[in-house]
């Protein structure tokens, strides 16, 4: 790798560009996505200071109530307030999504970039490693991790994160290889740039669109994976609520209280929708070709 370090970082020059926010506010899917995502974050933040009821307080006498003035979305099987659970559950879901995708994104992208920068046996090795880890589906590694370290949100997050690594590695490598074949990379090499600098300054920015879109999709999958793990008792542990766990719990009540499954389902759906829209918007906005109007 070259001894030359990149001179200053890419520092998202577009974000800093004066018109960025003005343009962003005119981008429909960015705005809708942004609002939904902001709501998600706000819900999580709000739960730290206020919830209509305590999300841990059980009142078994008033279980499974339909939505009413006192319990806006009704109560669950332990008589807890669904709104409060949803608010607090947002935290766990954000955490799972962000960290699990973060792990996959950072490690997977790094591996993918390394593979395409080094080629040869490094690439071969990394790709075989991803093959190998794909043989362990998320649920399987989660089961194993749980069996060894005990269940819990942290292990669930790590298991999902690990599963994201090969996916990101493959996608990154494929798109990075395409970028490496471009003439502007040859130009950079002709300038004497090292593989590291080229990777950071040319390859990464040019595959960012792919990564952004993939991240938002993976975010959704991570939240749902947490739900599936909770369904198997491997995810978030009680009494900590998470949307996935609420969904999993409501699933056993599908026949008596179908609404209980609808609320967290809708919450997940909205969060995922928001992130996808935000991702699409961000991809457009960060693309200089689409960004500037003359």
């Amino acid at each position, binding site marked *: 790798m070259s001894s030359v370090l990149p001179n200053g970082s890419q520092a998202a020059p577009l974000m800093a560009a004066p018109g960025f926010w003005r343009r962003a506010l005119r981008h429909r899917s960015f705005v809708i996505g942004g609002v939904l995502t902001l709501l998600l974050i706000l819900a999580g933040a709000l739960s730290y200071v206020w919830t209509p009821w305590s999300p841990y307080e059980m009142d078994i006498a008033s279980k499974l109530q339909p939505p009413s003035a006192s319990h806006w979305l009704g109560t669950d099987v332990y008589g807890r307030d669904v709104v409060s659970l949803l608010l607090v559950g947002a935290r766990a879901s954000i955490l799972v999504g962000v960290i699990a995708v973060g792990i996959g994104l950072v490690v997977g992208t790094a591996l993918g970039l390394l593979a395409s920068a080094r080629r040869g046996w490094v690439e071969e090795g990394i790709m*075989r490693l991803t*093959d*190998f880890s*794909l*043989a*362990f*589906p*998320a*649920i*399987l590694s989660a*089961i*194993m991790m749980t*069996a*060894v370290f005990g269940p819990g949100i942290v292990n669930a997050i790590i298991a999902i994160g690990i599963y994201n690594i090969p*996916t990101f590695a*493959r996608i990154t490598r*494929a798109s990075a290889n395409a970028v490496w074949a471009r003439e502007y990379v040859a130009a950079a090499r002709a300038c004497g740039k090292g593989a590291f600098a080229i990777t950071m300054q040319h390859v990464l920015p040019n595959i960012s669109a792919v990564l952004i879109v993939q991240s938002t*999709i993976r975010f*959704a*999958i991570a939240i*749902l994976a947490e*739900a*599936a793990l909770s*369904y*198997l008792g491997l995810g978030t542990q009680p009494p900590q609520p998470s949307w996935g766990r609420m*969904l999993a719990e409501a*699933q056993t009540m*599908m026949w008596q209280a179908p609404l209980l*499954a609808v609320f967290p*389902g809708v919450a*997940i*759906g909205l969060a*995922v*929708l928001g992130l*996808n829209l935000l991702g699409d918007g961000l991809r457009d906005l960060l693309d200089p070709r689409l960004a500037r109007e003359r």
Partner: protein
Amino acid sequence: MSLFLFKRILTLVATLIATSVIVFLVLEILPGNAAQMLMGADASPDAVAALATKLGLDQPAWTRYWHWVAGLLTGDLGNSYAYGSPVSELVLERLSLTIPLAVMAMGLTTVLALIVGVTAAARHNKLGDVGLMGLAQVGVAIPNFWFAILLILLFSVKLQWFSAGGFDGWGEGVGAGIKALLLPALSLAVVQAAILARITRSAVLEVMREDFVRTARAKGVSQRAVLWGHVLRNAMIPVVTVMGLQFSELLAGTIVVENVFSLPGLGKLIFQSISNRDLIVVRNCVMLLAAMVVIVNFIVDVLYAAIDPRLKASDL
């Protein structure tokens, strides 16, 4: 071609060796053992000890590893601790469900995704596109067990067209087997199809910008025929890549849906076997999965070459 095959086989072997070591080590860490699990809490301790001896659990780890690997090489996978029957039999039984299920789910996924993806791309940025992609967006966000229950509610409980779960093997006839797997396959397919549809759409859009599409249109080929006859096959490379990933995922990642439909699938077997500490089954299943993933990758690569004549098998 043969070099390519040779490389592939080498890869397979290396992957399997690595898998065997890691799987064995990881499983060694698991607390508890099969004898204890099988005998339960109220069992007499000496009965538990007798069972442990019978199962060979009291031997040192490396001996057990060696027995296992030696067994693998001679094609003897050993007997399940819990069921007492040969692992190979057990696994084959499960595969006779899991593979058809995965194939059906993948087939449904592909058909749904291609129709939705291509249609959306053809109506790029029009109402149809926005609508279909919105639907795909929703599809991605639906938890599949939730969708599975809705399917059961509609088709099994209300309409009583299908049974609500269970699978009695192919002995009852192919039609009955397919019928039993249809709802599970559908509930697996919806989420995957939503993802694949998005990828299909963008791949098709990309290809639609290429010059040869214009050439085809200049020959008088209609818009539709261009889309299905010329564009789609060119757009298949990224689609097939994702399909390969999804198929690998389906092979073992269907535990939840198997649960909802109470299907005896491979995922459930692994899950059960881990909780029963039937480690001999787990080990062999994971090996099988690893082998299958490598094989699926291989199939994907062969498909690449079949789709795109520019990629000869020798270049892979």
